[in-house]
């Protein structure tokens, strides 16, 4: 009975992809993607474009499947020798999976398709590489900037002017950001007699709410990881200044103010999002915020603007952090060339711009069409394009233990904002721990290379 059951499992019928009529003899590529909802629908449009054009010509059919925990599922499937042909992952996996030899190198295929360095903005092209190999191409990118509520700025114009600030522009330094924030922050006393923040000018929040807060040292002129020296930089005075600045908010506003304000928000894509609800005047976000404002509070469509997030270093301008979603071919894929056909198709300028407009994101490509800049759902997309093209645009830390580092930095930000951790001591401890983790990773890698 058991043998029979196992035989059915091993040799029995397989689920067949639902190929449209007339395409039964096509090569089916399995494409796993993390997106759901509108973003999945947008990508499906690109997949359909491919299937109806190049796919039809070359007898390739891409079948997209949306799933949660895609990084872990891709990893397990790759380890089991049955990976998808194309995996829609995130940029940190370029280094993490690349360093474990879990991805197919794509440089030769890219060259054959005419995709080279000049085609991409440097921050994204570099982010797709690790150890001299091209392991991914971008599906959609991001660049973060300061979103600010122009209506609140104008309503408080007199107060801002009295403080020597211009209500018609965004703050241009961290010092100015603090001054704008001090003027715009309002308090209320609750029924327990406790002071609460009713409206914040700017408020750093834990990474669950403030997605890019662990990268804040970039705006203070420091990177947390030095890819050349292969060292963490957490004891750099600029990193410490950044974390001290974060802690200045709970110091100023009260210990529980930050946590209470953060947790009183609803979901990101909801009318309770603090920026959309008008209880947060300035925040750091990606270009898609325009979409969420439009969906959740269309009346706010003309009440906001975007500008480069200010820096703490005089003369340092146009700093941004550029994470991206990436298409990769896991090791063991049996149709590498065909899978790359699809990836190259997504990276055609017209398809890329279509996808990025549907996702309300900037384009990773050097050339951007007039239509993209003028018909994009985010009216400030030019700001994001300029930021990602800036020499001060930074990619995700290219470190094989970036996931561990991310968890460590998240814990530090939480502790610093809750006034439970001293920034200096916690960064020193993290420096020692993370450097040791990295060195352990390198030692293990060398040992594996020797033995295999």
């Amino acid at each position: 009975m058991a043998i029979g059951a196992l035989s059915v499992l091993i040799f029995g019928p397989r689920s067949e992809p639902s190929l449209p009529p007339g395409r039964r003899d096509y090569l089916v590529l399995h494409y796993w993607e993390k997106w759901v909802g509108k973003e999945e629908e947008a990508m499906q449009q690109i997949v359909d474009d491919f299937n109806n054009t190049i796919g039809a010509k070359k007898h390739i059919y891409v079948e997209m499947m949306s799933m949660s925990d895609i990084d872990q599922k891709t990893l397990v499937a790759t380890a089991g020798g049955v990976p998808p042909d194309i995996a829609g992952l995130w940029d940190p996996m370029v280094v993490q999976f690349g360093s474990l030899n879990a991805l197919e190198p794509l440089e030769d295929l890219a060259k054959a398709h005419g995709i080279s360095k000049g085609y991409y903005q440097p921050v994204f092209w570099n982010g797709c590489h690790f150890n001299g190999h091209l392991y991914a191409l971008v599906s959609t990118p991001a660049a973060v900037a300061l979103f600010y509520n122009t209506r609140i700025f104008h309503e408080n114009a007199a107060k801002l002017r009295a403080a020597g600030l211009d209500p018609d522009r965004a703050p241009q330094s961290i010092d100015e950001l603090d001054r704008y924030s001090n003027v715009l922050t309002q308090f209320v006393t609750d029924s327990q007699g406790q002071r609460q923040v009713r409206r914040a000018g700017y408020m750093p929040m834990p990474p669950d709410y403030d997605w890019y807060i662990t990268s804040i040292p970039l705006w203070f002129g420091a990177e947390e990881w030095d890819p050349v020296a292969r060292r963490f930089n957490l004891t750099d005075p600029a990193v410490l200044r950044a974390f001290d600045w974060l802690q200045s908010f709970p110091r100023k506003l009260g210990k529980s103010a930050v946590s209470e304000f953060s947790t009183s928000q609803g979901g990101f894509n909801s009318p309770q999002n603090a920026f959309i609800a008008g209880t947060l005047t300035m925040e750091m976000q990606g270009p898609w915020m325009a979409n969420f404002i439009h969906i959740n509070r269309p009346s706010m469509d003309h009440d906001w603007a975007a500008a480069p997030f200010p820096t703490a270093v005089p003369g340092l301008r146009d700093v941004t952090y550029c994470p991206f979603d990436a298409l990769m071919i896991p090791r063991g894929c049996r149709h590498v060339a065909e899978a790359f056909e699809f990836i190259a198709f997504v990276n055609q300028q017209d398809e890329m711009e279509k996808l990025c407009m549907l996702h309300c994101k900037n384009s990773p490509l050097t050339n951007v069409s007039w239509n993209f800049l003028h018909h994009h759902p985010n009216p400030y997309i030019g700001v994001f394009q300029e930021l990602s093209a800036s020499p001060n645009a930074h990619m995700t830390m290219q470190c094989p233990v970036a996931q561990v580092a991310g968890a460590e930095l998240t814990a530090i930000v939480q502790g610093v904002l809750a006034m439970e951790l001293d920034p200096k001591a916690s960064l020193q401890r993290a420096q020692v721990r993370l450097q040791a983790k990295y060195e352990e990773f390198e030692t293990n890698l060398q040992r594996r290379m020797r033995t295999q």
Partner: protein
Amino acid sequence: MTITRGEIRNLLKGLAFLSPWLVGFAAFMCLPIVLSLYYSLCDYDLLQRPVFIGMDNYRALVNDAVFWRSLRVTLLYAAISVPMAMLVSIGVALLLNVKLRAQSIFRTLVFLPSLVPTVASAMLWKWMFNQRLGLINRVLSPLLGWLHKPAPPWLDQSNWVVPSLALMGVWSVGNTVIIYLAGLQDVPRELYEAAELDGAGPARRLWHVTIPMISPVIFFNLIMAIIGILQVFDTPFMMTKGGPNRASYFYTYYLYDNAFTNLQMGYASAMAWIQLLLVLALTGIAFWSSKRWVHYQGK
């Protein structure tokens, strides 16, 4: 003694019917357990062949501050959660054992939360615990105002988060209550009558009759709680992501992160074996102590 052909045929038939379970047990339980022991002695990232490194993973764990932190968090949770859940479930079972008109309705109400999927209850409680908007703080608001105390930051401060999660665990004691209830109904009536004749009041009857008579049930639930609580994962994973500042970063959560996020399957396997030893040790202590406080009928 010889086995007849018919008996052999029956044996084979029995084994054939049992074989799906046997094969499943061997393939999906025994083999992974043995392999995890081997992997715990290896450097293994899931993608490349494991490399034997002896006890290095165990040595590294000793020096890993996050490992100790996650262990402390888990033991603290167990220390709060196990007694609290036991006291509440025994108390509720005693109340439900009282003869009332709508007894079955009350029993159903107590059991109902156990049927709610963990994801749904986690989302529900996350909102209930919300510092500013949550139902709990809204209800407590008049009292807090009178005391001039701030609203508790249930899930948002390190010293609050573990007790909050333990409190939430009490909500789903329905399964345990049912087991206690069955135990309570097994307590012979004549023991209560004898105690009453000796002049014992309700408190003494509870302490000298009920508790000793249901002590095997308490012991069973204690063992199950130790095993379950040392493996807690889903609730903090969904509600707090281990935060704030790793204050709810439970042992199994760190194990999972090492295995599937940090790709250190060997390290995670070593953690799993330490967890098993910990469960065995605590269960062993419970068994050892049971000689003093667990009373079986007829012994």
